[in-house]
């Protein structure tokens, strides 16, 4: 069994009447990168701050490295945090920003500076040590923030929407950098984002949150292929949600019938647009076709409702108005309700 780095036990956080986190149980293993994903206001930042100790839980416990830290202030924990705004100290040089933590924790200044210089070199900032943060580009500032967060070998490093201040073009690169740093240093990391694509790309596991609760936890593939609810299916990637009925191992909706085992009764299936094939000639109608470079997205009118289908450009395009038949492998359908 892998070692547990962080554990939430029935954690609740209230602000007066408002409930920001409404009961979370979660374990994060050492060396893992877990993302908190969810729409704005669902409690991601609050959960992250609960780990940092910048908020204390109203109920429940937070454990870091096996120790209950629920009542410990941030300064008594060993976490690194990269803030959305980076929060570099504007009055200190880059080197002193990074050396700050070790000095606070009792390292002599020369030794702390040496350690900081080493880390800065590793994140690719050699030669900029004496600059002030205001003299760096956004991407460089972020690297300083990361260096500052990892210099103390924290039990966990926390990222709050680290890409929100990065140019759209650079996001993929920065994301890769963060991921490779995390792997290289063997860091346990918690990463907050509202962008599902970003979450799928960087995470070992994703915690999807909804209104202060965990909606689903799983690997990116788990969440994409086996969403547990219509909310998740819709939030992660695109999904066709089809309402119907299950009886004797078959799901039926108007014009659609698939083998789906499971409890009988009302049901809802999620079908990914790229998992639906189109064969010419059939009951359904292509109402729209959008050319997207690498693929074409079709809007299909069916008795079960309008569906979105995405086909690679390598297939022969079908014109609008064509009658088609939908090809669906029951394995690709996941029951979400």
């Amino acid at each position, binding site marked *: 069994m892998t070692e547990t780095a962080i554990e939430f036990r029935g954690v609740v956080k209230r602000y007066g009447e408002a409930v920001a986190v409404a009961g979370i149980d979660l374990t994060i293993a050492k060396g893992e990168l877990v993302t908190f994903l969810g729409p704005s206001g669902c409690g991601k930042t609050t959960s992250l701050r609960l780990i940092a100790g*910048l908020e204390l839980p109203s109920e429940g416990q937070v454990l870091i490295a096996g120790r209950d830290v629920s*009542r410990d202030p941030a*300064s008594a924990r060993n976490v690194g945090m990269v803030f959305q705004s980076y929060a570099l100290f504007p009055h200190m040089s880059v080197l002193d920003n990074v050396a700050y933590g070790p000095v606070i924790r009792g390292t002599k200044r020369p030794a702390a500076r040496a350690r900081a210089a080493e880390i800065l070199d590793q994140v690719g900032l050699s030669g900029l040590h004496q600059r002030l943060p205001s003299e760096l580009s956004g991407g460089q500032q972020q690297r300083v923030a990361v260096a500052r967060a990892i210099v103390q070998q924290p039990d966990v490093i926390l990222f709050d929407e680290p890409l929100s201040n990065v140019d759209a073009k650079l996001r993929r690169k920065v994301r890769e950098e963060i991921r490779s740093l995390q792997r290289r240093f063997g860091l346990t990391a918690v990463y907050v984002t509202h962008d599902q694509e970003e979450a799928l790309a960087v995470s070992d596991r994703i915690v999807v949150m909804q209104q202060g609760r965990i909606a689903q936890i799983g690997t990116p593939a788990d969440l994409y292929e086996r969403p547990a609810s219509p909310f998740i299916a819709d939030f992660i990637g695109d999904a066709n949600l089809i309402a119907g009925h299950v009886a004797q191992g078959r799901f039926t909706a108007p014009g659609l019938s698939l083998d789906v085992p499971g409890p009988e009764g009302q049901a809802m299936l999620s079908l990914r647009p790229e998992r639906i094939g189109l064969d010419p000639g059939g009951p359904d109608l292509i109402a729209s076709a959008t050319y997207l470079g690498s693929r074409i997205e079709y809007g299909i009118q069916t008795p079960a409702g309008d569906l979105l289908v995405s086909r690679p450009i390598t297939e022969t395009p079908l014109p609008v108005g064509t009658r088609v038949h939908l090809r669906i492998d029951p394995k690709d359908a996941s029951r979400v309700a």
Partner: protein
Amino acid sequence: MSGVDARRIGLVWSGLLLLAVLLLPWFKGGGGSALTQALEGRVWLMPLVAIGGGLALLSAMARDWRIHPAGAVLVGAGLVWLILQGFAIGLRGPAIAGLETLLPASAAGQPGFGWGAWIAGIALIGALADLLAGRGFCRGERFAALSIIGIVAALSLFVFFPILRLVATAFVAADGTVSLAPFAARLTAPELWATRCLTGAGRCGVVINSVILGVLSATLATALGLALALLVARTDFRLKRLLRALSILPIITPPFVVGVAIIVLFGRTGIVTVELAELMGIRPTRWIYGLPGILMAQVLAFAPVTFLVILSALEAINPTLEEASTTLGARPVTTFRRVTWPLLRPALAAAFLLAFIESLSDFGNPIVLGGSYDVLSTRIFFAVVGAQYDLGHAATLSLILLALTVGAFWVQQRWVGRASYVTVTGKSDAGLTAAVPPLVKWAAIAAVVPFVVFTTGIYAIVLVGGFVGDIARMDLTPTIAHVWTAFSFEITDRGVQLFGSAWNSMITTLWVSALSAPLTMGIGILTAWLITRQDFTGKRLFEFGTLLSFAVPGTVVGVSYIAAFNVPPIDITGTLWILVICFVFRNMAVGMRAGVAALAQIDRSMEEASQTMGAGGGRVMVDVVLPLIKPAIFTALVYAFVTAMTAVSAVIFLVSARHNMATAYIMGRVENGEFALAIAYSTVLMLVMMACIALMNLGIGRRKLGRRSALSKGKAT
């Protein structure tokens, strides 16, 4: 990393408590410790000794005394008992009838709190703060918890408690009985509320007079402060440096001296009046005595304060905001109106508020220049020190004054609103400040020029007045006789002997100012930090408390301190400390406002970053907060120091023969008509202040956050 060391903390507080009850003299004026006093009969002190022992035992034995139920019981009981016994048994016996049968020794009474009692109180309050932090108060941050509990305790003791005593006093009739009737009669007297002057049919009541003066004075001072700030921060106006210097002058001027100079210039036999009479045949009148004179003096006195407040807001505006607006094609007028102005609004409100409250609290100018224009502060003064001593009347007037200032504060708060003005973030903020539109610039110059001329005139009098024979009669023979009267000394073989009549008050003033300025600034900035950065239960109440301390006029403080601190358990009138305490709680609000304004523009995640790296609250303050708000600190420190040197409204009630203050001494000279001596002393006082401010400026330095400064490039500003 291990968590907080609860045991060590507990032993520190209980150790301090034990030191206080076992060794230190418990009462004021020496004598035995609580333990020895208890053994000699004052048995009601025994529980405090027991609580000290109990707490020490508990922190040593329990896993975490802070969450142990007994911890809360011990600390709570200790605090309650300390206060109860103090108030239950007064100097001449129990305050509660029948207590002497229960505790025979209480018949002899007990003196006020001494070192032992004070330290015990501090230890219990510290323990309480840590106990709460251990239970999650302030996210477990000890420093924040200690600050909050400490400030709450101090505010309760030095702001709320005196006010409560004051309220009680307002209900006491002349014969000593307590009822509603005397208060109602005092409150509704027509001499307070008459509005005849508005219709031109006579005089207004003292309340109406005060309000008219306050509004006019605050409006003019804020406008002038804004004009000054804009010229200094945002234009290449050539007289910039002169303005900066000139604007410092009035703040460091004792209030009486401006009044005296105005009389010397515009009084019935004043220099200007006489000139005008000779040149143009304008008949000399006493027009200056009353609203015009007070207004003139107040605007001169308050404009520099509003200037500093507005300037620090102006300098803290992130230039990228204005840059962005200009880049988007906005004309300077639009940028100013849509970006700069809204960002300045909170500072303007703060400035106006400050000036309004200062005006209502001002005592020095109305008493010198008021003539028959009565205002609340002077009326209160005469009710306390005048022939018909009537503390009840003074208390009632004080409560009205208090209601006005608190009301003003409330209105201002509503107007400023709760908009967020975060413009300094951890991200880089390089940029150029925008220049103001020409129209605004010329309006500002038009406002500032008369101010410059006027100030120059006043200070010419002040500079010369102390060193010539008799300035009031245009006798300009140079002499140092006045200075020598105040500050004569002799160097003998036994060292320097001070003979001058002013030495005593000068030395006291320096001590009080040097002690109170850093304390005032510290508490003010700390409070600002707590209000902007901490979420804790009871925060609204805490804000209200600091609000109250801000809105209490000095005159009211003076009266309430007399009502509260003349008797045990806290009898501190006549000491140096009551002067220091008075200044700290009277002026902390200015540091607080400056701090709040500065902190509101700084992204709090920088502090959180520091915390996650292991810094406790104190380190965060020193390493991150203070360096980023240096202008606010400087403002707070200078203001605190200077007010302590120049304030008069509260101290006039609190000075004693032993601890006299410079302003009280000067007021005496003015009352005696010794204008030259008053001016000479004031000049010396101002020189001393300037030297001290220069030292502070050197110590703190000015902020530079990697901001390009095109305006100052090449010019040494």
